[in-house]
């Protein structure tokens, strides 16, 4: 503090007469002084037995709230009780400060103390939270579909403006990264396939490998995970911030349905964007495979590549991949919006909800994909 250099150290003189003490401080009693004097003063006061405190501020230099608080230590007996006290010499400001400090030591502030069973409590609460979370997500999905189908019957009520701008944000802006990523994945699969299958003398099967894996599994799942990470965090943060600033409450009061205005447009935007992005991803992955096949050691010409792709992979793998995307789209949108709406007042809840939203949606995408794999296998597709 600026007064540091020229402040004089806090000292005091304590004298006792019968059952009253006189406290005569000198020097500056300020924030930067109190740490040193506190233990000394407290110890000395505890040793004394008295009923009344006289304060004499004649020699006192600067005083601030921390200093006054130190003085007030003398009047504290226990929670809610204090000794009588009087300022015999001192300015009005010093008296006011002293009054505030003496009042402050009277009140008993609440203390949070830790118990040994706290960790058990936390464990129990976490378990409970897990189940309510699952339950609430399912309930949210149910409510979403109810509103969604209701709106499908009256498409004019859908907020197309926000749908379009969301499609730009979710679909268009994500296209470059999806295409790039799927290109790399396709290339990696092609290289691995080429080198592995070459040892059997069956390099031409790498076309099957690339075609099936990219079209059926990789392009849909990579796209979905990417959008889950990219757009879910955005959904949760946007809606969460609106929740924190009571915008959501305002909408409800005005009569806007939060599902209609916030959730459904995002779901529709995802439903439109995800298949298109997946399609782009598929093209890019297959294209990467074709490039590797053509330029690599195995030397399969593009014509041959597509011929084989047509013969053995066919359009079925494409549809198997595509059919999953609307499910992913709904999962992503619903989880992101639900977590956003679950944000409460604090910044921390915004952070934890955003994390949860990304983790949950990626988890759900992979789980649903596994269910589809089992289903298609059983159906012999």
């Amino acid at each position, binding site marked *: 503090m600026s007064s540091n250099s020229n402040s004089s150290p806090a000292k005091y003189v304590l004298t006792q007469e019968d059952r009253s003490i006189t406290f005569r401080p000198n020097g500056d009693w300020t924030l930067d002084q109190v740490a040193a004097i506190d233990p000394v003063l407290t110890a000395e006061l505890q040793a004394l037995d008295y009923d009344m405190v006289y304060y004499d501020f004649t020699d006192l230099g600067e005083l601030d709230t921390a200093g006054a608080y130190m003085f007030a230590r003398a009047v504290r007996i226990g929670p809610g009780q204090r000794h009588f006290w009087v300022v015999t010499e001192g300015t009005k*400001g010093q008296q006011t400060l002293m009054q505030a400090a003496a*009042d402050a030591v009277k009140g008993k*502030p609440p203390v949070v103390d830790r118990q040994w069973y706290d960790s058990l409590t936390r464990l129990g609460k976490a378990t409970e939270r897990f189940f309510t979370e699952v339950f609430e997500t399912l309930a949210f999905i149910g409510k979403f579909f109810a509103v969604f189908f209701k709106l499908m019957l009256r498409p004019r009520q859908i907020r197309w403006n926000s749908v379009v701008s969301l499609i730009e944000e979710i679909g268009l802006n994500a296209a470059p990264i999806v295409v790039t990523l799927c290109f790399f994945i396709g290339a990696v699969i092609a290289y691995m396939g080429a080198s592995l299958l070459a040892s059997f003398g069956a390099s031409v099967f790498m076309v099957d490998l690339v075609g099936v894996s990219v079209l059926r599994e990789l392009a849909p799942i990579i796209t979905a995970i990417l959008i889950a990470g990219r757009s879910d965090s955005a959904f949760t943060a946007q809606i969460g911030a609106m929740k924190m600033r009571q915008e959501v409450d305002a909408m409800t009061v005005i009569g806007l349905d939060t599902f209609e205005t916030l959730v459904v447009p995002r779901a529709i935007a995802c439903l439109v964007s995800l298949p298109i992005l997946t399609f782009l991803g598929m093209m890019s992955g297959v294209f990467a495979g074709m490039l590797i096949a053509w330029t690599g050691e195995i030397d399969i010409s593009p014509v041959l590549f597509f011929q084989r792709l047509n013969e053995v992979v066919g359009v079925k793998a494409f549809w198997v991949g595509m059919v999953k995307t609307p499910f992913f789209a709904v999962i992503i949108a619903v989880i992101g919006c639900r977590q956003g709406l679950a944000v409460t007042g604090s910044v921390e809840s915004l952070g934890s909800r955003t994390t949860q939203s990304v983790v949950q949606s990626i988890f759900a995408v992979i789980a649903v994909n596994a269910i589809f794999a089992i289903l298609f296998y059983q159906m012999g597709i």
Partner: protein
Amino acid sequence: MSIEDKDTAPPMEAHGILTQFGTNVIHENLDFRVEKGEIVGLVGGSGTGKSVLLNTMLGLKEPEGGIIRYFGRDRTELTKEEREAINNEMGVLFQGGALFSSLSVRENIMVPLREHTDLPVPLMRELADMKIHMVGLPAQSATLYPSDLSGGMKKRAGLARSLSLDPKLLFLDEPTAGLDPVGANAFDELILGLREAMDLTILMITHDLDSLYTICDRVAVLVDKRIAIADTLPKVQEYDHPWVKEYFGGPRSRAALKAGKT
């Protein structure tokens, strides 16, 4: 800085301030000073740049022109240490309270103490509780989080935090806005009491005519991109400017004046 300077020089002085966002000029050739120990009220229409002026005076925003002096020292000539020392002499209550939402009220008040002193934590906690008491919050609110507080309580908690280092200069941005009249009066009383107890110099942006009439020593008027007049209330009311006439001549003002006089 030397003691002589500090005791006589005005705590805050702005000279020839020019502020603009792009081509939008907010302040032009603005002069303003706050003398030691006074409570100055800053008034002006919505959007005239009161909050921006506050940010400029706090150093959150550098003005496009002009100089700011703290305790007689040009802000741009201060060393980093001096600047920090002066920052500790200033407390701010922002318009929305600006409490850290992840910390309890007590922890909020402890933040400046943790940052700038090396007191033991229990003592910090006690001092924080004293501030909570001083601003008139119930002791139980110490462990509450900002989202659990009402608007008035948030203001009080924000004030408690701004007082935690015992500043010499206190800035308040619309401290009584959004409080009920009883709460606003109590807040005014609180400010007066704190000034007396802590030897504060206070600059408050306010739209609350009651505050202007009851606690402000001087009133500064921000119109036409500058402080047109900064003087005692009767003189400001005499000032010949349409906005000032309208502001102090309106029905609300007359009511507040009557209430203030009785």
